[in-house]
């Protein structure tokens, strides 16, 4: 379909040629007639163009959301995890992504992501710069339920001892607070996310409105001091064990304790 503007353009071109021919042939009256017609068409063309601009202006708004950074899902998750600096649950990863980036992550796709990563590593080991893998439990070195980590992190950061969930929670709070301090105008979502941490850290903030990222970071740091050493020694020991006992794939994706029934068949 040709738009009215396009039809006008074609007609204008034809008219211009006709005007030129009339002038060169010395037909003054005809040339004047044609010129008048040409001007009328040019005005109509201007109007058609304005109309076209109006039409396209309305759907312009949602464009940035769709067009956003069209990163693959794994990149988006990697971004969120890097920001948090510690293994995190899918729910938190999504919350972080929504607070700082455009576009949305569909929870169901996160579930398949972990399987895809493992399959990819098994078929072509170490071919990607990083893999998204489960955190490992310190005692059994098995995948921890619902916690994602990045393969490039040191082993000790990827294993989860008894104190680690809280330690990682505090580390994430500090990282988030730092990030909020750096960006000029944090969104409401971002502040709300930090408040979810601050509300559960002693002395972090009296209320959501009075919360400052720096105070949250200080309070989290204070509690972190209590747990840090015992958690570190626990995690280091488990990491050492993991490096000694597990093969490449298991070091990333954990060893699974199989039931009697499944090994028996």
């Amino acid at each position, binding site marked *: 379909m040709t738009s009215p503007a396009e039809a006008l353009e074609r007609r204008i071109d034809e008219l211009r040629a006709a005007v030129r021919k009339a002038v060169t042939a010395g037909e003054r009256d005809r040339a004047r007639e044609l010129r008048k017609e040409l001007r009328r068409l040019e005005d109509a063309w201007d109007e058609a163009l304005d109309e076209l601009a109006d039409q396209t202006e309305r759907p312009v708004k949602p464009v940035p959301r769709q067009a956003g950074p069209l990163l693959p899902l794994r990149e988006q998750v990697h971004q969120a995890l890097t920001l948090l600096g510690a293994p995190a649950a899918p*729910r*938190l990863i999504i919350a972080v992504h929504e607070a700082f980036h455009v576009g949305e992550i569909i929870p169901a796709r996160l579930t398949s992501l972990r399987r895809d990563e493992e399959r990819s590593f098994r078929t072509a080991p170490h071919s990607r710069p990083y893999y998204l893998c489960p955190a490992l439990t310190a005692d059994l070195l098995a995948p921890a*339920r619902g916690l994602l980590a990045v393969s490039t992190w040191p082993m000790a950061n990827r294993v989860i001892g008894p*104190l680690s969930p809280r330690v990682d929670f505090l580390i994430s709070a500090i990282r988030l607070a730092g990030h909020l301090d750096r960006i000029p105008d944090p969104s409401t979502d971002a502040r709300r996310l930090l408040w979810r*941490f601050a*509300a*559960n850290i002693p002395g972090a903030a009296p209320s959501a409105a009075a919360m400052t990222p720096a105070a949250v970071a200080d309070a989290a740091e204070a509690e972190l001091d209590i*747990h840090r050493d015992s958690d570190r020694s626990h995690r280091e020991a488990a990491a050492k064990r993991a490096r000694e006992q597990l093969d490449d794939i298991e070091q990333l994706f954990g*060893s699974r*304790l199989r039931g009697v029934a499944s090994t028996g068949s």
Partner: protein
Amino acid sequence: MDNDTSERLRRLRGAVPAKRHNARTVAALTGNPGCARRAVLDAAGVDKEQLARHVGFPAKFGQSQFAITRGNAFEAQVKANAFAELIRLLRETLELELNEVGQTDLEEVGGNTSQEMRHIRSRQKLTGAAADGESTFFDHPLLTLDVGGNTVYLEPDLVAFHHNGKFHVVEIKSFAVIDDQADGGKVAAAATQSAVYVLALRRLLGDDDAVSDEVVLVCPKDFSNQPVATKVDVRKQLIVLQHQLSRLSRIEKLVGELPPALTFDLAAGDDGKPTRSAAALTAALAEVEARYAPDCLAKCEMAFFCRKEASGCTATLGINVREELGGVETVAEALGLADGSLIASDSQAEAAAMLRTTAEIYGSVTA
């Protein structure tokens, strides 16, 4: 339980697998301790829901899917971010120290979710808790309890271990606490259910003093999703429960009084429906005495059947009426005593006098 009795119970159940108990059904055992029908059916592990449906009184029973979803969502919220909200609440309610944040996930063992594995590991971790002091929170441990000779698996939401050596059962419920008040019935149900966990945990540890008889109930506050924690004393529920469980194991006497050929066999024929006729099962049910109370409707699958059976009896009017009218069995009898058309026996004299007085007052008011 001796072999005779377990053989007898097996025969009562027939050729179908025993129905498993859970915390709710164990808690419900305490609801109507006087009911022999319920005691026998539960001890034998008969599928009461199927039985009730087959004899024509299906019970709309169990939790609604919406309630289950809401409950799970609230629990996930409270436990999100490494128990962030729970840690804050329990620091306040149980006065946990700042360093008591260790967590052990007992919902699976290295990807294995079989009940046996989880129970073994829960036992290992819980009995070792005092010694290694690593963990304060045990997420979804799997406990066992012996109910009338059957092992029942129970899964509390959370068990918290306090530095003074006490375990606390934490129960997360999604009914609201509005202005510091919650629905009494729901709190009572939650308390009884928690008492089942406390008992199971005590049996597992072999030490009654190690588990606090105060459980922590976590509920949403007012009309928000903000959780609030309250301590609930479950000593009374524990006593009732223990009594009820010991009574279950003394089921011999109840069973011994039943006709030897009695059975509630629900074994299915080729068409997937029980082979025995509804009439035969109804007759079998009539052999075991029930003790219906309106309360049963909320607690027992057989309630609609028993209510039909008890229609015209004073018991259907509630426990209060039943107790006031001791010795007067039916409503017709009560009315007869009230208008003087029946002569009261010695055991009914007291109730009859009260009925007559009430009738006179009622008559003078309505006249």
